[in-house]
């Protein structure tokens, strides 16, 4: 992992976020930092505001108050020009892939490149093929439409699109949701491999405990509108907080924990 000077140390800095939908308080003074080069995971029970926090980082939803800094720049109230340059420097993968259904996989991956760079068509097509290969898809997938792909392949295609502009920061929403165990563990490997070889910073929202044990450097647990704990999986698994204990020591948490120990 690269060691950058302190002001650049945190890629994402979230401080004192307060979000409300009507009367329901989703985030009550939430703060966390994502460091350069790490895989940071956000977990918590359904409806605790994980995806909302991700949407707030992505400029898709505005919190009532607080501050979110990405690459050192405040994103709340950002002007369009700065927002565009920020949007070019991150890659986003949505929970349901959000591939454009009227375009082939290759066109999906190529869209950001054609929109934002001045490279020749031939080079773009080669790069598309490289990204498709990097995401672990067969070359034949490029000419297919998203509706012709399986769920796992669609996720990989979405990952390939999110990496189109070689972003430093990847934001993944439930990357393994809806995948069979084999595809999911293949995806774990892929994320880890890409992070290590490309030096990416990854922030993800996930429920997948196997994924957490295998790839996450640090994990934040969100619950009751607050950050209940931040740390490595080992640290969190020793946390006395009842919600965290229940999360990690429920039957499924236990199994994933055992599995990760057997692998080590």
């Amino acid at each position, binding site marked *: 992992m*690269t060691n950058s000077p302190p002001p650049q140390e945190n890629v994402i800095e979230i401080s004192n976020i307060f979000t409300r939908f009507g009367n329901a308080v989703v985030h009550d003074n939430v703060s966390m930092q994502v460091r350069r080069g790490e895989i940071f995971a956000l977990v918590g029970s359904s409806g605790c505001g994980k995806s909302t926090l991700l949407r707030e980082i992505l400029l898709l939803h505005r919190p009532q108050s607080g501050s979110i800094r990405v690459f050192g720049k405040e994103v709340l109230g950002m002007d369009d020009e700065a927002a565009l340059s920020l949007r070019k420097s991150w890659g986003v993968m949505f929970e349901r892939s959000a591939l454009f*259904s*009227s375009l*082939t996989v*290759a066109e999906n991956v190529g869209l950001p*490149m054609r929109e934002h*760079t*001045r*490279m*020749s068509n031939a*080079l773009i*097509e*080669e*790069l*598309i*093929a*490289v*990204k498709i*290969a*990097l995401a672990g898809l067969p*070359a*034949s997938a*490029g*000419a297919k*439409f998203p*509706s012709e792909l399986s769920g796992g392949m669609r996720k990989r295609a979405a990952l390939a699109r999110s*990496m189109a*502009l*070689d972003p430093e920061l990847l934001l993944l929403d439930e990357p393994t949701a809806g995948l069979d165990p084999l595809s999911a563990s293949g995806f774990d490997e892929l994320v880890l*491999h890409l992070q*290590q*070889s*490309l*030096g990416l910073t990854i922030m993800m929202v996930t429920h997948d405990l196997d994924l957490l044990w295998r790839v996450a450097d640090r994990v934040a647990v969100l619950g009751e509108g607050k950050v209940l704990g931040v740390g490595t999986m080992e640290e969190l698994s020793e946390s006395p907080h009842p919600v965290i204990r229940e999360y990690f020591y429920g039957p499924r948490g236990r199994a994933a924990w055992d599995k990760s120990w057997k692998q080590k």
Partner: protein
Amino acid sequence: MATIEITQPENIVRCGGAWTLGGISDLETRLDNLPWPAIMAMQFDVTGIADMDTAGAWLLQRTIRRLESDGRTVTLQGQRPEHETLLNVIKPINITIEKPATSRKINLLEKTGLMTWPHLQQAIGMLAFLGETSIAILRSVAQPSRIRWKPILYNLENAGFRALPIVGLLAFLMGVVISYQGSGQLQRYGANIFIVDLVGLSMLRELAPLMTAIIVAGRSGSAFAAQIGTMKVTEEIDALRTIGISPMELLVLPKVLALVIALPLLSVYADMMGVLGGMVMAKTQLGVSYTDFIDRFGEAVKLSAFLVGIGKAPVFAAIIAMVGCFQGLQVGNGPDSVGKQTTVSVVQAIFLIIVADALFSVIFSWLKI
């Protein structure tokens, strides 16, 4: 900006700058025109490369591959460890660019077939759907407890009651227009009072039911197609089937029944508003007073004219609802298919309404009504 140059006389290729997505766009053309020295063992010095991403790594890798395919050997030196890992990731990737199969030339006969076949299939599908709907209707008649009143009432409100303002306004304007167009001609012959025949017959027999049907096709037929189509995309139709509820009974029948009830009622309303519009115009243009107009109306317009108009409405209603539902069910698995089928549903419904109206005219002229 990424740079590349060949230093003389040692013939070392020096790369530098930012080999990134933003930096390599100019490099690409320069690489193609670079005068590669005619030596077999090439040396690349990449010490100067400050930044590299997968795009840059690919370009470097591609250059090396091209040189190697000419039979040369290439050695890299001075690469940073993080760039080394990146290059190692890119190295084993073999790309083949798959193009979607390009369409071959097709002759006229084949083209005709390709264009006709889907229409034929559609007609057969529509006929099958008509059969299914008829069976469902008969089943509900045999077992009235199976009729779902709540969705019927909901559709009555949405497709019927809420259409009153637009149908009323347009029918009124239609009456005004006909009366205005006719008044000039009638005045010339001093046949002012016949404005009643013109407005009454044309509105009641033809225009009010036809226009109401066209408005409802645009308003509700499209809504039916879009609703069912979206449910199809999100697998809600399949979910209904697995729960043991027939989509036919829950989604299609209530819409058909509601529209069959609503459209004749809307047509009556359109009749009234249209005649009212004609009446207002008759008074201002031809000086035919309201009482004269109403007196003449009873003589000029027979009950049969009204019934002929209203009798067409249930048929139009069935066409609109069934085409809307059928096209909704034809939606494939993509969101753009919803839009396409919705458009098709409106075009087809209006087309079939006008065809049906023409058929009615032929039949009525045979029967001398």
